[in-house]
């Protein structure tokens, strides 16, 4: 049973239907009503999105590892093969070659799960341009697992020291109220901007920097500085034995409240260099969000050293009740447990910058067949250890007025991807479905096997 639970947790972490921030495959699509998410200058039509349901749903993940990096198919002859119908095992199985396992990992194994859920959006012409009012639910979760962590787990003892840096997981969840405007300056230049008010729902950031594990013959030492910040609606830490000075064992007393408030701006512009060549640039999510009274937690000590049992090991002489070898190994575990858990450090207002994204694009219309356009889009998200970079080459074709199709290929910091969008555009109806990253090989439960690059977006809107 526990095997299944572990698998589900792993699968959930890997396959959480999280939304891609935006569907970048639509950047060069004329029928797309959502390009303004990437460049506010591309807001050029009036519409109303389907409220609350399928207005604009973006779910996606990026990552440079997949399920198959950690779950292996067992081979005949492996210990446990076929027992109780088991044919999958973890990377910790002794028959999984450490070199192969670690060779398939990156120095930093990243995964990003993103959701953008458009609750409502109304775009209209006014003020000599196009305006938009929108309400979105956004969620971003990022995980960074350094390779050294897995090297330590798989081959503890092979090296004398392990530096585990930049281990972290972060999630931000907020409502976004956006007010946007695009304005054609002249035939060549269009500018746009969007001001977004952010209402924070939940935030948590756990990181362990400079986790140093040293395992020499005479001494084991672990040092590091893990810490946790969290603001989840309105809530409090719970403590072991209800002792406020004790270690944290959960979060409770959750009541409705919006602990975060922020402001962000999107700025963008397009420039028609030639009739058939347009360049664009935008920076989005330039802003901050302030989390009020974020719960702070850190361990009460930052290092642990073991150079032998505290008591001489029992060998038939004097049993002190705690000097038997089993008891002393237990004590090591207890000491480690004491080192790792987090203790309440009070509350603090935390102001965090959003992960700004830079999009730079170039679009070229094929003169001999104008429905066909090619585009290149460079995207860079600035998010510290969770940063992301991508270059996408796209081909867009609109053979008929009511149908547009885009196909692209991209190289990113999480590997090579391919995406596609289909957009059906009637006079007062628009539907799109697409993906920035096709699902590659997946498990039976649709968990990506080789990398976490996946996304699906769809939406319905009603052009005015």
């Amino acid at each position, binding site marked *: 049973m526990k095997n299944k639970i572990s698998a589900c947790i792993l699968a959930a972490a890997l396959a959480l239907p999280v939304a891609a921030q935006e569907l970048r495959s639509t950047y060069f699509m004329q029928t797309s009503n959502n390009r303004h998410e990437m460049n506010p200058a591309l807001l050029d039509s009036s519409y109303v999105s389907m409220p609350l349901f399928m207005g604009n749903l973006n779910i996606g993940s990026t990552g440079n590892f997949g399920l198959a990096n950690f779950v292996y198919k067992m081979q005949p002859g492996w*210990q446990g093969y076929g027992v109780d119908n*088991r*044919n999958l095992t973890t990377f910790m199985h002794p028959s999984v070659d450490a070199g192969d396992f670690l060779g398939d990992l990156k120095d930093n194994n990243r995964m990003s799960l993103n959701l953008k859920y458009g609750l409502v959006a109304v775009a209209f012409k006014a003020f000599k341009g196009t305006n938009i009012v929108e309400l979105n639910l956004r969620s971003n979760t990022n995980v960074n697992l350094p390779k050294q962590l897995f090297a330590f787990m798989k081959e503890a003892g092979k090296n004398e020291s392990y530096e585990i840096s930049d281990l972290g997981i972060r999630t931000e969840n907020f409502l976004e109220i956006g007010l946007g405007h695009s304005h054609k300056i002249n035939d060549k230049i269009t500018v746009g901007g969007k001001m977004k008010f952010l209402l924070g729902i939940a935030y948590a950031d756990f990181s362990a920097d400079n986790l140093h594990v040293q395992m020499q013959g005479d001494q084991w030492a672990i040092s590091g500085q893990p810490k946790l910040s969290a603001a989840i609606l309105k809530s409090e830490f719970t403590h072991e034995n209800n002792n406020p000075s004790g270690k944290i064992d959960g979060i409770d007393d959750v009541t409705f409240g919006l602990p975060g408030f922020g402001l962000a701006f999107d700025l963008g512009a397009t420039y028609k260099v030639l009739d058939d060549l347009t360049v664009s640039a935008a920076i989005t999510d330039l802003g901050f969000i302030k989390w009020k009274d974020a719960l702070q937690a850190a361990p009460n000590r930052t290092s642990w050293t073991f*150079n032998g049992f505290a008591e001489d090991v029992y060998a038939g*002489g004097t049993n002190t009740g705690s000097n038997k070898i089993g008891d002393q190994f237990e004590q090591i575990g207890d000491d480690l447990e004491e080192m790792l858990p987090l203790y309440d450090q009070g509350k603090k207002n935390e102001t965090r910058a959003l992960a700004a994204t830079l999009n730079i694009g170039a679009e070229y219309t094929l003169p001999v067949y104008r429905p066909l356009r090619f585009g290149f889009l460079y995207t860079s998200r600035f998010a510290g250890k969770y940063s992301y970079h991508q270059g996408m080459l796209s081909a867009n074709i609109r053979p008929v007025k009511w149908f547009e199709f885009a196909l692209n290929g991209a190289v990113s910091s999480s590997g090579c991807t391919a995406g596609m969008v289909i957009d059906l555009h009637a006079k007062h109806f628009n539907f799109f479905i697409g993906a920035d990253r*096709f699902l590659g090989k997946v498990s039976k439960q649709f968990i990506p096997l080789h990398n976490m690059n996946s996304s699906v977006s769809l939406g319905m809107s009603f052009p005015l």
Partner: protein
Amino acid sequence: MAPIQIKQFLFVGALCAGSAFLTTACVDNSYDLSEDLDLTMGLGSNGLSVPMGNVEKIYLNDILSVDESVKLDAANQYYLVEDGTTNFDFTIDKVTTKVDNPTLRTNPGKPALPFNKVCEILGAAGISSITLPAIPQVFSGEAEGTESMDFSVTDISSDIKAIHSVSFTPLKVSLSLEWFKSNAALKFDLKELKDVEITLPSILHVVDGSVSEGWTLVEGHKLVAHSVAFNGANMKEIVSFMIDQTQLKDCSTIENGKLSISPEVLHIKMKGGADFVNTGSFTMTSNDYMDVRLHIKVGTPGANNKTNIVVTSAKGVFDPLINPDVESIDIASELPDFLKDPEVRVNVSNPTLKFNVYPKNNVQIPADVDFYATLHSIKDGQDQVSPVEFPKYTRLYKNTSNVIYFYQDVAPYDPNGLEADAPSKKVQTQKVDNISSLISVLPDRIEVDLGANGNDKHIRVVGENEVALGQKYSQVVDYTIYVPFEFKNGVTIVYTDETDGMNEDLKDYAADGIQISAEAENTIPLDLKATISAYDMYDNLIPGIQFDEVDVKAGGGTDATAVTTALTIKATLTDPNLLKKLDKLEFKINAASEATSNATHKLVSTQYVQLKNVKLKLVGQIVADFNDN
């Protein structure tokens, strides 16, 4: 192709491609997470090292448990103790002793008052008869005579070699003098004895102060009186005294159960003046005389006018046969485990055998007894080494308890402290060179031979002794062998211990091997060689799990002389899965003194061995099965 057809073609193609890409991913059904994942995990890697620190000091006290056989003395030194007991007794049979009651007469032809003496007194001579006047007149004569008192001792057993004296219940000796006349017509009365000297047989011992009044005992056997009056009595007890002993030394021999006494010591003599007085006129002829005789009466005469003497004790030389059945000292059945192994050797410096001899029922033996013991080390029913004979002889002194130590080294070993002389105890020590040969290989038992083998007697009464005849004399002999664990070389003890119940913790793990390095600090003055064997739950040896032999150098015996040995113990498994079967580890530690050591070492309970700076290093991985099987 017409443009509209191209458009249609592109449209349909894009739609199909998009549908295909969007709606179908490549699903690998073999990655089905609805099934359990196998949780077999390899932990650690070759070379993973765990610093464990120190193992507690393992004191000898923790390994060698004390019990009835192995104990600690006041200095915490170990010693082996076994004991046994026996008793021996002897009885000198009673003898039959009788004494005559003779009558002493004057020497023949010399009556006390002959005719010629009367004539002499009256101034007459050459006549054949004389008439005495009626006027009373004292006529002094001389009475002298010798008689022999027959003192017989018969029914003498062969245990009695010589009797030097016989003591008996004091008897009254009554000497009664009777005077008589040769002719009834003689009118004489004995008036007085004067200056009487009665010489008793020299063997008789007169009890001091028992002589009747008026008499003096001179030189121990002469009764002298100045005057003994007779007032008309014809016979009268003139003296009485008590005798309680006869001295027979140098005047007697034993032959065929009978005592022969030199005649001269049996004589009783009398000499003294006898004053007669005539009581009227009468005529005395030359054949007439007056005489006396002395009647000797000892005690209450019985048949044949002999008096039985109840002998209370006799002094002499006795040689009873003492052949006790000696309980052996059981060694094997009482041994602690670490001394049971066939490899055990106990070539200690100073084994000590203590004999504690004391009377049974508080009746002291009034005789010196010499003894020596022959010790046999018996294994499988026969002597395993030459018997050890103690020096001939060691004396058990009379009328006291005796403690004798037989030891091998400089002084005897007694964990309770050496005993010392006391008013009722005599302590002796005797060095014996090769006691340790008896126990170098611990026997089943040690037999103590105290018996007689023909003329060679282990126990014999010696010297002149006074014993109560018919009395059974018993001595308890408690013998204890102390084997202090003090040695130069030649000691090997084998200690076996085991840990079990490991299978519960190990059944989910597999490993190629493990290496333990440590520094062994040893104060025990024995080289320690440990071998480890692995067993499964059914006590079957697992030959595929091998441990290196461990050698730890001997220490100097004290904390200051501890010796440190660097150890590396490697455990290898021919099949890593053998670890799942392991349930018990058996440790066999062969602890031996250095073969060529000349220094003396002791095993003390506070000596220890300690593993320090223990590091555990993996050989390969440990494979753990965390599945719910």
